[in-house]
């Protein structure tokens, strides 16, 4: 069951998946109105369809792929939030044309994401399975049943780990 053990394969997959998800997100966004929210579930599913159609990429199975996805989305979001924060601190000297209602999205969730990431890293040392569940459910948008399939654990375990992780993260965030 231990997906985390397949770390080499995992990182290889992540390497391929990372740009692909960004690319798919970009395509989806450029097609949509800019106040549209981009839902990770749709994105991850599209990524799977796209990548499984390409022969060069071989996955053990869909479960494996999806398991990595959550982690991938988390990394993308966090790195985006980091660069945005850095830009906010550094730049601002040049007057820039503002487009209404575009640049302020996520403004209030950026900091939360970075903190959440730190907490998840800490939680990993306490209970790695909880982190997996959070990644799949929150970052990948999967249901408990799907997560139970992907992680090959019982449904009640998924629920239990989710409840616990949520309480712990919430507690830590509001300290």
């Amino acid at each position, binding site marked *: 069951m231990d997906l985390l053990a397949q770390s080499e394969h995992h990182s290889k997959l992540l390497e391929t998946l990372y*740009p692909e*998800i*960004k*690319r798919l*997100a*970009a*395509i*989806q*966004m*450029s*097609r*949509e*109105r*800019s*106040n*549209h*929210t*981009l*839902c*990770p*579930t749709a*994105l991850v599913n599209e990524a799977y369809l796209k990548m499984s159609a390409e022969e060069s990429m071989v996955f053990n199975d869909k479960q494996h792929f999806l398991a990595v996805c959550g982690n991938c*989305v988390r990394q*993308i*979001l966090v790195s*985006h*939030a980091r660069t*945005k924060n850095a830009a906010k601190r550094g730049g601002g000297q*040049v*007057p*820039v*044309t*503002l*487009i*209404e209602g*575009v*640049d302020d*999205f*996520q403004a209030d*969730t950026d900091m939360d*994401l970075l903190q959440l990431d730190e907490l998840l890293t800490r939680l990993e*040392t*306490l*209970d790695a399975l909880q982190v997996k569940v*959070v990644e799949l*459910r*929150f*970052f*990948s*948008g999967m249901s408990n049943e799907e997560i139970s399939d992907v992680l090959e654990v019982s449904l009640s375990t998924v629920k*239990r780990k989710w*409840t*616990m992780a*949520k*309480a*712990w*993260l*919430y*507690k830590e965030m*509001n300290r």
Partner: protein
Amino acid sequence: MALQGNEPVVADYFAEIEDLFFDALELPPNQRDTWLKTKLKDRESVYTEVQTLLDAHLSSEEFLSESPDLKGIAACPDLSGRRLGSYEVVEEIAKGGMGRVYSAKRVDGEYEQRVAIKVVELGNIEAELFRRERQTLANLEHPNIVTLLDGGTLEEGFPYLVMELVEGQVIDSYNITNKLNHKEIVKVFGTLCDVVNQAHQQGVIHCDLKPANILVTNSGVLKLLDFGISQSIIRTHDIQAEGTYPQGLTPEYSSPQRREHKPPHVADDVYSLGIILGQLLIGGVLPRVATELLVNKRYKQIDLDKFLELIPSRELREIVKKATDDEPGGRYVSAHMMGEDLNNWLEDKPVNAMSSGRKRPFYALSKNLIRNRRAWLILLFLVVSFALGSYVWKEVSLSSARESLEKANTDAAAGAEKVTADLAAVLSRTQPSIEVQSELTGIALNNIQQNLEKAPDNIPARHVYAASLVRYAQLEGHPLYLSKENPASALTFLREASQSLRMIKEALPDTDTTEAPTKNDSDQITLEMIDVDLLRVERLIAEIQVYYDLETGMESREVGLTQLRDVEKKLLAINYQPVSRKQKLLYVRDLAYLSHTRLLVGDIPMSKKLLEEAEKVLATISGVSSFKRDSSKSVENQLKQKNELDLKAREALKEIRLLNSFILEQKAYQAFLQDDLDTASRQYKKIIAGKSGSDVQLSLLLDRVSQMRACIALGQDKPDMAMRLRGDIIKNLDDLLEDHPGAKRFKMMHRRITDQSFSIQQQLDCQDVRFIVFPLRKVKNDQN
């Protein structure tokens, strides 16, 4: 295994904590704490941990329930090294609010070329703006506007533009590194005004002028970039009603109107130009602070004045102030006018923006400013009131009752009539520059047209529409009067007017008893009237052919003259008996102009005959309004009505005086042609004696008179008098040019009459006095 307090909560205990947490959750809420306390009597930190987890559980129901929005990561990837069509991207060179700009090189081996590639990064609004920029740039070809080479869409879906790579500096740093003096800045800025004006003339408002978008190349050529949020003027007018259009602005350089999201206007670009100019002139001295002050001046009026003191030239200061007036009406009407004023400064001529010029007294300018402002205010009122009118009209027509539909129809006519009457009054009273006149008339025309579309069969409304088209056409290119000198456009409008008039003719019943919804019989539209209207349009078309050197060939003038003879014959055959004052005045004008062209070819008898007829009709026009007391109406209403009538009467009187002068002028010229210089002189003096008012048409006429008198004086060996008259003409031209800086004709006249290399005869055009009375461009150009 009892543990001591303050034990660290590490992974070892984490599983236990989880168990305790879930065990506690099994219990009813009110028993949990007691249970935990008993269970963890000596392990305070574990107790606290579980306790806070339980609290957190209760309030974390919503927490993490919604997946994060991934929109933010949907940015365009770095394109460095990527190949796009024939180009390979080298590196990112700039980043703006809407996207990135890369440098790239051509790699298809055709030839070497470095280009700039601009990619928009986010969603659809910008993509739309971007597509528009692509189209705008494709349409705009100008050496000072960045050239569009290619365009496409990335596989990720982002559109991109391939543009000429401008290697240079943004204008403000160019200014600082090259330590430009004020003259040099103003020169460079003149080019900027020109290019912005060019864009305006092609119907594009830039909307985002700022130093970052203005580059100066290493060889000193100015290049305007970034038409990303530019607006088509026509489009803007369309969207005006809905009030929604894509927004994008740079607050530091945006006019108050742009910041309030009003529809973009040429005046917005003028404002941005003013801010940039101020910034450049203040130069290296804290430009950011200066900009801030300029932008926030409403709150810091005094500081702004103090700050602008950093610009040593008072005139330049005033130019910046005028361009950045909070009210669009207080600004320069166009970028061209701003450029002109800067040129005035360069050439040490009086600057229009000066509220107390060296040469001109204070009042003339402040008057001009007030004039424009008032005109704009009234324009606003017109548009609003007419929009309201059409709204009411719509409501009424929706009620579907037959009578209300009929009422709506008369409303459309009344509305159109009101717009034109109001407009005429405004123009006559305020005498704005030709550009403003034309813009206001154009907008009124648009309104009438829109309402006409809703009631296409409304004859009175269509009649007003046709009359407005004729008026607009005259502003575009009337050969004998101040106009924008755009004969081709004038012809287009005249043909449209002719079409409308023919439609009316077909729709009119054969008998002269039209339904006539108005009570006033004199306004009734008759077949005869329409025929005369049609001939008027034909006359104007023919006159344009006579007086403008159209591309139809050398015969343009001959063709026009033949047509005019035809118009004349038909008009006299109708034996028209106009009833209303308005129609009479128009008819007199027709006759006077026909006579005028007769004089051009030296046909004095026919000219005399036409003038006699004109005088006869003119004599029947009463300048006094016929106001009937109506006791059924309130005193206020009656007063209002009387005021309106008085206003119309005043306008009519002005027109009557003008026509009288015109007829007198022609009589004088007739005498002149017959070598009767004394009679000619006497007639000309009569015009001078009877002059009143400051109308442009009258002013032009008086100029002609002075010129003719000067020529006669020279012929009678009175050079002193000729010189004095020449002085009057120059002064008059100065005045006219101040009010109408765009008028090419005045400029040409001014240049000629002040040209010291000419003899006074040549300056006054005495060699061929036809040049004075008839503006024959072609002959004139041959002479130059």
